[in-house]
């Protein structure tokens, strides 16, 4: 199993429950869309799956690591080596070239810069941006920037790719290309969890988790 949540609650100060009694299992290589309106707990679900936050109660296991028992160092190690994030806001650093932005995705793995850059070139080639390696992010279109962010997540060959509204800032054409790209990557064996509020995007996924007010209200396949 790639990811499993069992009776997970996530409470924020002021007794705001972002997740309520969520239980779900996601197998290795599965492609899952988490869909729901704003404030339904989708992003919290992603940060818990991404080990950026621990659950308030319940059990979460990611790639065999139990979040309640693991140390911060273990969780950071898991993120560094096995989890790739893709954000709506891209989070690219303007002061660096496209190549170094992608290579930085492996910064905390303890890999030498030369090897990071080599992996970054491969990843950029894979997302179709090998002609943009020396560009700065601001010289690229929105779709291209998100491709760079995807390449950054890919370069480390992650076991899980977590994407938070990756097409939210893009026009429908670029968005479609990005989705296609994410599906292709996932076809290589990585688990893909994508957060979206867009039902049409969710429809392109073989499995859809429906969230509402922090609860998992639907788990549809096919």
């Amino acid at each position: 199993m790639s990811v499993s949540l069992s009776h997970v609650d996530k409470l924020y100060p002021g007794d705001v429950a972002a997740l309520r009694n969520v239980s779900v299992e996601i197998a290795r290589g599965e492609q899952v869309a988490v869909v729901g309106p704003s404030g339904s707990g989708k992003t919290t679900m992603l940060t818990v799956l991404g080990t950026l936050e621990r659950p308030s109660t319940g059990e979460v296991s990611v790639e065999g690591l139990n979040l309640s028992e693991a140390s911060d160092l273990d969780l950071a190690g898991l993120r560094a080596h096995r989890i790739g994030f893709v954000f709506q806001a891209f989070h690219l650093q303007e002061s660096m070239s496209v190549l170094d932005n992608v290579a930085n995705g492996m910064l905390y793995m303890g890999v030498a810069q030369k090897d990071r850059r080599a992996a970054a070139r491969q990843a950029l080639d894979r997302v179709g941006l090998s002609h943009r390696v020396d560009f700065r992010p601001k010289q690229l279109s929105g779709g291209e920037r998100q491709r760079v962010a995807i390449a950054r997540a890919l370069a480390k060959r992650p076991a899980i790719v977590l994407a938070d509204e990756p097409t939210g800032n893009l026009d429908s054409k670029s968005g479609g290309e990005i989705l296609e790209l994410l599906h292709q990557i996932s076809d290589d064996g990585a688990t893909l969890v994508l957060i979206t509020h867009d039902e049409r995007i969710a429809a392109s996924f073989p499995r859809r988790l429906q969230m509402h007010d922090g609860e998992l209200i639907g788990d549809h396949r096919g």
Partner: protein
Amino acid sequence: MSTATRDRARLPPHELLAVAGQGLRTRKLRAALSALGIAIGIGAMVAVVGVSSSAQANLIAEIDSLGTNLLTVSPGQDDFGNTTNLPTTAVPMIGAMRDVEGDAPIYQLSQNIYRTAFVPTEETGGIGVEATSDNLPKVVSTSMASGHFLNSVSNRYPEVVLGSAAAATLQIPTANGNILVDIGNQLFAVVGILKPVAIDSSLNPEAFISLPVAERLFALAPDAAEIYVVSDQNTVNYVSNLLPPTADPADPSGVSTSRPSSVLQARAAAQGQFTTLLLGLGAVALLVGAIGIANIMVISVLERRGEIGLRRALGATRRHVTIQFLAESALLATIGGAVGLVIGAGATEIYAASRSEPFIVPLYAIIAAPAAGLLIGALSGVYPAMKAARLSPTEALRA
């Protein structure tokens, strides 16, 4: 446990430094301005230390060139507080001492020196007239600015040599024997002007005539007012202790001895005290610079929440984030310290060159300047770095 637990998040020190440098390069102008605060503070301190060291080195070199083996013997006070007189035997007795390499007595005259006889008698210009032997310049390590000192001719004819300040007061720039001055209604030819006597500036506003002429023309008191003694370098203390009983075997306590070089040494030490005060002012400038860096780093943390969130997502631990911001702050202030060192050394060089003093920036200042920057940067970075590390990754990513 799965393989996942064996995967550690790592950031080797050289990568950390590169990340810190990248962080500063992203905001060049701001980094430069905040480093400038530290540079000015450290520059001021280095300049204070450098200038004072250069001046001290100059003074010490002067003391060394003059020698620390000059002693003076003068009348002291008796048990009732009255000024004593040196016995007339003091000069020959001291001259006969084994470790005394030279001595020059000074006899005070009650006469004054005037440019002409028409100058009102009260306008003495503060110049004293003294009789001395012809080896005085050698004994007090000075030489002639013009003309020559008293010699065998001066022993027979009325000739006078002026100290540097006396010549300036009388407005006599050069001495060639053609200028006559009035001493006790006698005309004296000005045959020489001394260079300033560094080791004992009390000789500068004086006029010197020879002993035989003084005895012949004026009522010369038989006791010396002061005797300059040059001792063997290795036995200065020994000679100094022996001088009072030699000068006045009957009442050694009535004889006062001193070592003029110690006055200059005290002056060098006094300059050191002044330096401490200025260093304190430099420290205040540094404190302001440190607060500036802390302020900039706090703002930087707020602005870079997205980057912090991303780094956490990429596998950075809280510790990595703390160290990154600490390193940025320390790097910034260390660069400031190094630039401050260059500024301070430059200021010292200009000062030293303008005064023909040796250029000295002490080794401790060269090491301390960047080290102080590093320390200040690390300290002022603590709070912003902790703030960055405490940021919730989720909150940070939403920024």
